């Protein structure tokens, strides 16, 4: 079986490729170039750099598989970066990796697979996929809790899951590193990527300013509308943020609301962050159709959040209401709300 594997140059996708080779598949490595190699190494932060492409190529060579670099700069800019900039500018906190996975990586891989005459596509994500007797594909968390990436994959469709393979989703990260070491993969010691790849050193606001320049300065206010400080734009803030407000107050203050239209950053005490309900749009139900009615589930509202018990009510095919059993802190518009039942991903959407 011919399998196209997305190789980022990191440990996980390198081991994924190695495992597929071991399983006897006809493996083709693909790396996605998201920026112009001629621009050198400075532009991007922690993944998809020119060094990573070199690492991917060397791993592929070591495994004896062909390796190709596909140029996706234009689509990356259109799909991922432009959306990121728009979201921040409108007072939301986007999650570009989820957009990138569903709208860029998987769609590109599936397209490539058709072109390459390949049956399946694989990535190094920590997630699992199964197919039930009725032919429906199910998406689950990876077995390693600390590395699980199912949250970022909620937007995958049945058509994409039908082709998807996650070879490391069944194993803990330690084992993945051990396999990398034992096979002499040079990337075994590479640190995990953490940052958003196109944001240099966490300075995401500069990405927004550079691409969408405007005077966004405004006021920092409290719940009563009293002016506490000035700010350089709502895109410098995210819900729950405490540092960098430029205010000294008796009790710690947190960002509780962003109003891009009126250029207001509203702050309040920690308790003001608590909320027990949310609505989400652009919802994808992994099964292809929404659940028949309200379902009990656990809902995760950002990548580092323990999914919390809730009732989930689908609205139409692509919206939902979530009612948590207990209030959650800092529900943030633009982040994903992902619906789980135990380890299974039922679906998810973007918090309004």
């Amino acid at each position, binding site marked *: 079986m011919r399998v196209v594997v997305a190789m980022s140059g990191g440990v996980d996708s390198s081991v994924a490729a190695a495992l597929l080779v071991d399983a006897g598949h006809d493996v083709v490595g693909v790396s996605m170039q998201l920026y112009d190699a*001629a621009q050198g190494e400075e532009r991007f932060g922690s993944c998809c750099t020119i060094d990573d492409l070199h690492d991917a190529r060397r791993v592929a060579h070591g495994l004896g598989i062909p390796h190709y670099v596909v*140029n996706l700069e234009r689509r990356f800019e259109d799909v991922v970066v432009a959306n990121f900039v728009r979201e921040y500018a409108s007072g939301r906190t986007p999650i570009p990796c989820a957009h990138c996975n569903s709208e860029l990586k998987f769609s590109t891989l599936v*397209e490539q697979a058709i*072109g390459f*005459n390949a049956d399946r596509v694989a990535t190094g994500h920590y997630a699992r996929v199964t197919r039930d007797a009725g032919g429906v594909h199910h998406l689950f968390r990876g077995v390693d809790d600390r590395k699980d990436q199912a949250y970022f994959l909620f937007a995958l469709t049945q058509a994409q899951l039908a082709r998807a393979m996650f070879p490391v989703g069944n194993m803990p990260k330690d084992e993945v590193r051990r396999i990398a070491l034992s096979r002499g993969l040079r990337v075994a010691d590479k640190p995990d990527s953490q940052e958003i790849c196109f944001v240099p050193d966490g300075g995401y606001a500069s990405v927004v300013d550079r691409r969408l320049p405007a005077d966004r300065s405004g006021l920092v206010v409290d719940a009563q509308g009293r002016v506490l400080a000035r700010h350089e734009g709502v895109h410098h803030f995210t819900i729950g943020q405490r540092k960098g407000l430029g205010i000294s107050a008796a009790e710690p203050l947190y960002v509780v609301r962003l109003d891009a239209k009126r250029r207001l950053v509203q702050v309040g005490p920690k308790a003001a962050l608590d909320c027990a309900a949310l609505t989400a749009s652009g919802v994808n139900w992994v099964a292809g159709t929404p659940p028949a009615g309200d379902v009990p589930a656990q809902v995760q509202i950002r990548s580092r959040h323990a999914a919390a018990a809730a009732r989930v009510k689908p609205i139409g095919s692509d919206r939902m209401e979530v009612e948590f059993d207990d209030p959650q802190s800092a529900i943030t518009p633009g982040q994903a709300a992902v619906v789980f039942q135990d380890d299974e991903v039922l679906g998810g959407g973007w918090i309004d």
Partner: protein
Amino acid sequence: MRIYLDYNATAPVTAEVADAVSAALRDCPGNASSIHAFGQRAKAVLDESRAAVARLIGAEPSEIVFTSGGTEADNLAVRGVAEAQKDGARPAIITTAIEHEAVLNSVKVLGRRGWPVTVLPVPPTGVVTVDALAEALEAAGEEPPALVSVMLVNNELGTLQPVRAMAALARARGVPSHTDAVQAIGRIPVDVRDLGVDLLSIAGHKFGAPKGVGALWVRRGLALQPQSIGGRQERGRRAGTENTPAIEGLRVAAERADRQLASESARQAALRDRLERGILEKVPGAAVNGDSGARVPNTTNISFDGVEGESLVIGLDLEGIAVSTGSACSSGTLEPSHVLRAIGLAPSRIEGAVRFSLGEGTTDSEIDRVLDAVPAIVARLRTRGRARG
């Protein structure tokens, strides 16, 4: 067996060349500048090779400067002539929009340093017109330009450029001319006196010599500012110990090219024509780029409507067939081919372009296999394009 149809990127060395290079590596360890027997032996290798290269292009051996390849030869020609002007004068440089980067970027560097630059436009035929040069010379006014640089054969399209007529025009104005003949050697007869140019670049690896060796022919008496500074090798025109084994390989490849030129070019032209005709017949929406009349015998550049050239290259590679989207030197960048852009092709046609370049090893049955593979892969890629919508 894998099929290699990317000879314009590089050609494999023949067994004969490989043997000669490895014999020189083993048996000829001296430095050609040394007085002793080892040095004399190495010097003899250079002399023989210089004579063979000179014979291949109708030049004198003393006019041949060995370089590390085509790029260095182009750099030395363009910058060497520009910088050799008396009293720091900076007369204009004229070149074309479809030159190899080795020329174009050298010219750009000079442009940034104050030399006026004229880049001649090239029509969709992929052949620059003599009129364009006439106009540029006219526009240059009183002071004659320092150099006209026009390639003999375009690497992406295979189109022949009217170098002889352009050199004559330049000469009439007292302007020296350079031609990058990297893609011409071994494919068409090249004679420097007949062309009437003053400098000519050669890359060994395009016609069966190893990578890392080439030559610049410099007409005797032409002033040239060396670009690598050091010892007095190559009559003071290119410092650095000569790469004796590779230069020995260049000799064998040059002799072979000289011997086989007529028969090989006819054979390759027949294969190329059959490949091209077959593709045009079997694949709807395929079109040849550039003037198919004025071409070297081994190259065809074809655009496939609704297909990304890059995907077709990968699809063919997975079936063991090596072709390219254009210049190998430009892959890895997102810039579409500057050649196809320069000749005014529509963006979709540029995106769908693939270059097939044949060589000595290409056989009839290989062409059959390619003609089987291309239509199927193009059809598959087109369904994919529709799937994306």
